[in-house]
């Protein structure tokens, strides 16, 4: 059983709180950045964080954010989109929580969505949601 906690995303300052999930003491965003270190994709993480900040400030980010369908009905699931990367998060009361980040490998990002939901449901189970 994985251990879950959350922490505020330092890079983002917005009206609404934005947090990232920590799985077994490893923050997901930090791990994602570490995974991308040395690649050209790292710049896209900055773009994604910019979109999330604008979104958390109540702005519209158009097609840079997609609300996922067919998942857990209790929470709204977001997919933040850049050219090659995807960040997945959910809407919790009063905050957005980033849960998973991945590289786009398939046209429909289904592999990333599966991985995201696996973590998401496990986390929500620990909260009894």
């Amino acid at each position, binding site marked *: 059983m994985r251990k879950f906690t959350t922490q505020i995303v330092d890079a983002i300052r917005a009206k609404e709180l934005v947090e990232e999930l920590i799985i077994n003491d490893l923050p997901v965003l930090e791990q994602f950045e570490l995974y991308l270190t040395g690649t050209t994709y790292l710049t896209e993480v*900055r773009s994604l*964080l*910019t979109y999330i900040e604008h979104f958390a400030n109540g*702005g519209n980010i158009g097609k840079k954010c997609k609300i996922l369908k067919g998942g857990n009905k209790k929470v709204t699931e977001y997919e933040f989109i850049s050219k090659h990367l995807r960040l997945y998060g959910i809407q919790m009361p009063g905050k957005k929580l980033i849960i998973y980040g991945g590289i786009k490998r398939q046209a429909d990002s289904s592999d990333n969505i599966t991985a995201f939901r696996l973590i998401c449901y496990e986390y929500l189970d620990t909260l009894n949601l």
Partner: protein
Amino acid sequence: MDRKELITSKEYVVGKIQLTLLNMIQDYMVKKEIKRTELADELGVTKGYVSQLLNVAGDHKISKLVELSLSCNKMPVVNFVDLNEYINNDALDKIYELSLVDRDYSTHSNTLPLEARVIPIASTLSKSMYSDEALLEPLYAIKNFYVVKKEAISG
């Protein structure tokens, strides 16, 4: 990634400008109740370009950005602030917002009147500088105009 690294990155600044542009265009579309095709016609751009705008993609030329803003009845107001000052203010949760102030005319009284600034230049004209007299005529006309104007003001 820390806050400083993010806000001083090119992606952050470009992204913010793109999102502001997107929001302005979306507001305009809602206000005018028009769709992408109509917007493209109105702005005089292709449908593909409108898609680029609405998908927060593309690196726009300054002239295009201005053109789009003016078409949406908006005036872009560009400002530059010191980077360190920006970082410090951001850390204090202070953001930059446009404020309206009165235009400052206080320095006008310290500057010379226009005629005083022009006449010395015109008075330096001489035949030694210009061999063709016809070329000098319009310049002498300007000189005379300012002399007459100066007399009218002082008189």
